[in-house]
């Protein structure tokens, strides 16, 4: 084991019945890394995020956070150790206000006084561009705002490793631009980040380092500019003929 690794994913296997969604995925994140995780639909990207965050338990392999095994821990334990995530389809606490949603993450399982959270809540809402919606019910936000809130909630838990799942999906160009800018801000406050994305143009704005998954296996690991030239990656995205 490399002593400097923030997160190590070693030979993760996840099966759903006879379907092998992840077939021995390994990757490693060092401090300061932003890793783009790309691949076509059904390649296992979200499954891997679910396994790392604890919503799914792997059938084989191990996960190490700063050298500590975390693959059998519950999601809230992992969250307390510093792993947090956003969801492809965000699920804010719809009946609560935007501020209350942030407060839950700031409380982070403690039974503290909400009044003490004011300054930090305001800072996070400002960063996410949600200050003016503070007292709105989260269920009334539009898709882009819900995604921002999801990211803001994850940030409020002060994660060391942040897993961002298809934040740009379903957003228009200017909204995706805003999200990319925000992610660059976010990288200052986390130790390492995995950004899952289907939209290739989005990923190159956020990071140069990518891992490409196909059918649950890593088919490429390296720089984005090399990935787009790689024959296996081109085959996966464009088909065997080389395509359009």
């Amino acid at each position, binding site marked *: 084991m490399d002593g400097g690794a923030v997160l190590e994913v070693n030979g993760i296997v996840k099966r759903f019945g006879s379907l092998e969604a992840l077939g021995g995925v390994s990757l490693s994140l060092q401090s300061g890394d932003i890793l783009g995780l790309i691949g076509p639909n059904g390649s296992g990207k979200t499954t891997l995020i679910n396994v790392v965050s604890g919503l799914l338990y792997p059938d084989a392999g191990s996960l190490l956070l700063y050298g500590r095994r975390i693959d059998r821990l519950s*999601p809230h334990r992992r969250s307390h150790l510093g792993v*947090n995530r956003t969801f492809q389809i965000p699920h804010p606490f719809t009946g609560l206000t935007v501020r209350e949603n942030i407060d839950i993450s700031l409380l982070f399982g403690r039974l503290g006084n909400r009044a003490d959270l004011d300054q930090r809540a305001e800072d996070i809402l400002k960063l996410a561009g949600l200050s003016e919606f503070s007292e709105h*019910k989260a269920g009334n936000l539009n898709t882009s705002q819900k995604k921002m809130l999801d990211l803001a909630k994850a940030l409020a838990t002060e994660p060391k490793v942040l897993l961002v799942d298809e934040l740009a999906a379903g957003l228009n160009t200017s909204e995706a631009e805003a999200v990319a800018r925000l992610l660059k801000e976010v990288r200052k406050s986390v130790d390492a980040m995995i950004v899952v994305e289907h939209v290739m143009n989005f990923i190159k704005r956020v990071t140069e380092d990518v891992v490409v998954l196909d059918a649950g296996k890593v088919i490429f690991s390296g720089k984005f500019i090399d990935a787009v030239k790689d024959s296996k990656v081109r085959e996966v995205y464009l088909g065997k003929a080389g395509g359009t």
Partner: protein
Amino acid sequence: MSLFVDAFVTSILYAAFFSIAALGLNLVFGVMRIVNLAHGEFLVMGSYLAIALADSYGFNPVVSLAVVVPVFLAIGLLLYFPLVPRLQKSGDPEMSSFILFFGVSYAMEGLAVQLFGVSYQSLQYNLFKPIHVEILGYVMPTAWVVTAAVSVAALALVYFYLYRTGLGLQTRALMINRDEAMANGVNINAVSAIAFGFSIALAASAGVFSSFISYPTSPSIGDTFTLISFAIIIIGALGNPLATVVGAVVFAYAYGYTEIYAANWSSIVPFIILIAVILARPQGLLGRKAREF
């Protein structure tokens, strides 16, 4: 006119009492998605403890609350860990909880028979002096007024807990989305255990006053309280603790008026209303907000 107003005033008292009698059942369902069929038995046990404290030490029921609340809060916390987390891991926690708490209910009823016998027992109205008070020209037992006042105070405390504390915020988050709450660091077991403890303590607190305002205490009356509580939370909205108050008001007025005008129907009409609500609005009167508060 007098009878009509009498029924109106009495129903307010019933509504306040039924609210705290049923509230805990809804809190547990909202947070844990399980049904505590032994809810009424905890109410009965609270009642027996209050009767024992009155017999042995002359405690009036308000003083007894200082003993009953912490004792049953502790019982709830202690029972949570061996029972509920295992249920949550089953394929269908709701159905499993029916079966498990059905067993708990009968075990508790048997225990009550062993400890207290099968005869009916009640607290004496003269634990309060004066025995009667006059409010707005109506003379009524002091015990009834105290029961209503304590019930309203308990509701206010539950509101404060749910809407003004960090713990309450996390409790509401858990009711809305369990996975998301876990991802945000909410300790499911800690928050649920406290809610379960509150639920049992609320039921027992209602039990302290139950022999004044509803039925005399006996081991077998727990089933009736579970049934009434269940009807109330379904009428209000299953999973929304504060909708319990709406369910309790509807149930109490149906009960209160039929008791005065057609006493033979007083145990039938409230349940006819329950059936009507289930058919017309299966999600309950406040059902749309069941998961959005």
